[in-house]
């Protein structure tokens, strides 16, 4: 089977493409899948992590993955730098180092592994601090990744775990984080929880907004308190950032300029999973300091 990639489409059309492509995998009888990038000139992290999830779903069903790019040299270099083209090769070691890319502003594609997330978030913070951010404290990156990963591990029930890509833009100091899973989706998880409690279901839009309420949790594990997405929102607003979240039938977004007010739109095609794109302005990161403080209650 061959899939033609066109990354010059809107995000909602892309999501529809991903879902249609996943449907073809439902029989589990696809021997080979060729991903054809010949119609694409560039591909954003948002598109790549969702594509990676879709490809992984085929791969775990035994499908052999291959890529064709023809004369797309720049795109080829970008995909090679993130190890995207090698990721599904039989002998490729997915966890042999996290950051050894030729394009040093991009961290290589990483499949989220619950036993390694502490290591990953710390290394990601150190990587950008030492190479690009000099005196800045990249704690917001560390915590954002931690909240996104914990969200997948504790709530998503994704058969392919999830994928992350981080991209730094030196010209404007923006840092883009894209994380995707193919789990139940935030809106459905919340509505399942409400149903279990005998409460009225919400629209997907309402459910996703509720996920950002302080102390609302679907209690996937007993320790959950519902502060993860609230923390994420605070970081995005503090760092002059933007957040886009696609789950089930809704795309929600907010940014600092809009003072955190939720916007968004209904998707034409439902997405079974959750896809985050977060942009942080590293110019808003605090300056690193050796000072120590005590907490007075």
């Amino acid at each position: 089977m061959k899939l033609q990639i066109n990354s010059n489409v809107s995000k909602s059309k892309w999501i529809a493409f991903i879902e249609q492509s996943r449907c073809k995998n439902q029989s589990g009888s696809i021997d080979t899948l060729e991903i054809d990038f010949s119609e694409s000139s560039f591909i954003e992290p948002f598109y790549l992590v969702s594509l990676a999830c879709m490809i992984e779903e085929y791969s775990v069903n035994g499908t052999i993955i291959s890529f064709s790019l023809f004369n797309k040299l720049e795109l080829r270099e970008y995909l090679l730098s993130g190890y995207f083209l090698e990721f599904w090769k039989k002998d490729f070691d997915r966890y042999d180092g996290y950051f050894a890319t030729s394009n040093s502003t991009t961290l290589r594609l990483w499949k989220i592994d619950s036993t390694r997330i502490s290591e990953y978030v710390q290394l990601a913070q150190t990587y950008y601090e030492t190479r690009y951010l000099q005196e800045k404290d990249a704690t917001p990156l560390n915590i954002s990744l931690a909240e996104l990963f914990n969200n997948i591990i504790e709530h998503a029930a994704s058969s392919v775990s999830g994928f992350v890509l981080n991209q730094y833009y030196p010209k404007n100091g923006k840092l883009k984080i894209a994380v995707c899973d193919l789990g139940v989706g935030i809106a459905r998880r919340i509505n399942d929880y409400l149903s279990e409690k005998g409460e009225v279901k919400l629209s997907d839009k309402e459910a996703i907004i509720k996920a950002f309420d302080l102390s609302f949790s679907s209690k996937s594990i007993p320790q959950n308190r519902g502060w993860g997405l609230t923390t994420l929102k605070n970081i995005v607003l503090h760092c002059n950032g933007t957040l886009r979240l696609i789950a089930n039938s809704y795309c929600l977004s907010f940014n600092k300029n809009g003072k955190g007010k939720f916007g968004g739109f209904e998707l034409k095609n439902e997405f079974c999973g959750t896809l985050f794109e977060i942009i942080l302005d590293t110019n808003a990161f605090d300056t690193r300091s050796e000072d120590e403080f005590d907490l007075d209650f």
Partner: protein
Amino acid sequence: MLMKMQNIQVMSVVQATTTNADAMPLYLLLKKEMTDDTCIVLSFKDSTPLSSSFLNTAIGNLVDDFGLDYVKAHLKIVQCSKSVLDTLKRYFDNVTKVQDS
């Protein structure tokens, strides 16, 4: 009678500060000391950033076990970086808000 005191370095007890699992050794140690009515001086020297999952297990569980006032009375938090201090302040503020709501 003077309360017993115990110094604990967070980064000597845990390997990381990202997940619920990372926090479990710290929670068990703090619970043991609080059960013995010991006042704990908890140092966050050289701590990595604290996720909400880590804090839910390390601190949130203690609040569930003993109550917020007891935890605050038995915990002295010291040697935090600015970002760790901000995270802890926000966490305790949230615990208080939720309790008051």
